[in-house]
């Protein structure tokens, strides 16, 4: 099995797997109308958040966790590809960082809905939001390192 050339990206992959699991759980509970394992009635109230009109993709009945599944699945593919790529690694990392940045914009909107509009927090949603943030920060730092390597032709690692 080939060694990962960017082992830090495996962390992004793990975060994506965790995000996939959480999104799948939220999607299943939505379609099965099953109760979420989460407190209710206080500031933390997953049911109120996920069953609000903001819990579905606007204009549809599709729960917002379905786009989340797509996001984490593609992020996982990009992370694995970026970790192993010999060619075009910089481009893959740039794509991964851009994808995660887009994800973070959606996360900010959802956090706005929770805090400012609903005044309730969904802890499962917050977990996925934190994963997106972590993935972006790791992807960004690896993109920086790869870009710097290309710029210096590898010299940066020998300065001593």
């Amino acid at each position: 099995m080939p060694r990962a050339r960017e082992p830090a990206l495996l962390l992004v992959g793990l975060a994506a797997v965790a995000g996939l699991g959480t999104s799948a759980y939220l999607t299943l509970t939505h379609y099965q109308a099953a109760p979420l394992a989460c407190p209710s009635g206080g500031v933390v109230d997953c049911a109120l958040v996920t069953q609000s009109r903001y819990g579905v993709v606007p204009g549809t009945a599709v729960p917002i966790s379905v786009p989340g599944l797509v996001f984490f699945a593609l992020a996982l593919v990009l992370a694995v590809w970026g970790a192993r790529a010999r060619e075009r690694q910089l481009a893959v990392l740039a794509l991964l960082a851009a994808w995660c940045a887009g994800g973070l914009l959606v996360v900010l909107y959802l956090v706005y809905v929770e805090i400012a509009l609903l005044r309730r927090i969904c802890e499962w949603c917050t977990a996925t939001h934190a994963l997106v943030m972590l993935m972006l920060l790791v992807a960004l730092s690896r993109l920086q390192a790869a870009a710097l390597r290309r710029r210096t032709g590898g010299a940066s690692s020998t300065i001593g």
Partner: protein
Amino acid sequence: MRSGRRPTGRGPVPPAPWWAGPLPVVGVVVVVVAAIVAFVLVGRSQSPPAPTPSPTAQSQVVADITGLDVQRTEAIGAGGLKSPLQKVSASPLVGPRGKPQVLYIGAEFCPFCAAQRWSLAIVLSRFGTLSGVGLTTSSSSDVFPDTPTLTFARSTYSSPYIEFAEVEETDRNRNPLQSPTAEQQRLLEQLDSRLSIPFTDFGNRWVTIGSGYQPDVLQGMTWQQIADQLQNNPQGPAASRILGNANWMTAAVCQQLANPPDNACGGPDMTRLRAALASGA
């Protein structure tokens, strides 16, 4: 002093560019934290939830409003109000069960909707059973702030005479709540060109745009005080306006029923209002 070792054949190592430092990563964290702080501030700047009474007290108010004595409250007549109704010419509006439909489009923030709902709840109760009505207040930051009112957002209605459709477009903080159907939106645009709310359509025969009275008479009152005045002092300033508006709207409903109920439509005061409506008053 030890100098940097460079690979042979390469030029001097260029200084690290700005983007290679911690700025991008730190920048993302700072932006996210700032956004969350801003969201908290925005959330706090909105009106607090309406101070509603206990569920028992709410039930009492709703029971009082929907159980008013028809003869006694119709005796108020127009309550000194001019007719709020406008005659319209459109194909009859009927509900899913084929009965004439009363369509209400409003929003919980809107103080004029707050005034209209008291009257409309009385009208509906004269022809059927209105359930699931809650209590709230209009926006704290609009004119006539915190006007006590009902909300139809989770209401249900059954009647052998008419059907009722309601749309509360936003809550009292102007957050989206319910959306009109395409047909309801088309009606609103056709019959209420300025899209003013509250818009109440009585079977596409008469409409009211706005409330039939000013919400100022409700200012400073509690829900229970309004309910008590309606029950015990229908001549009072708030009750007479609520009932006058309700009586005009009741006349509009009666006028489009083939067999209107005597209890709601047959009394002498209602007969006078119906005649006035028929003559274009």
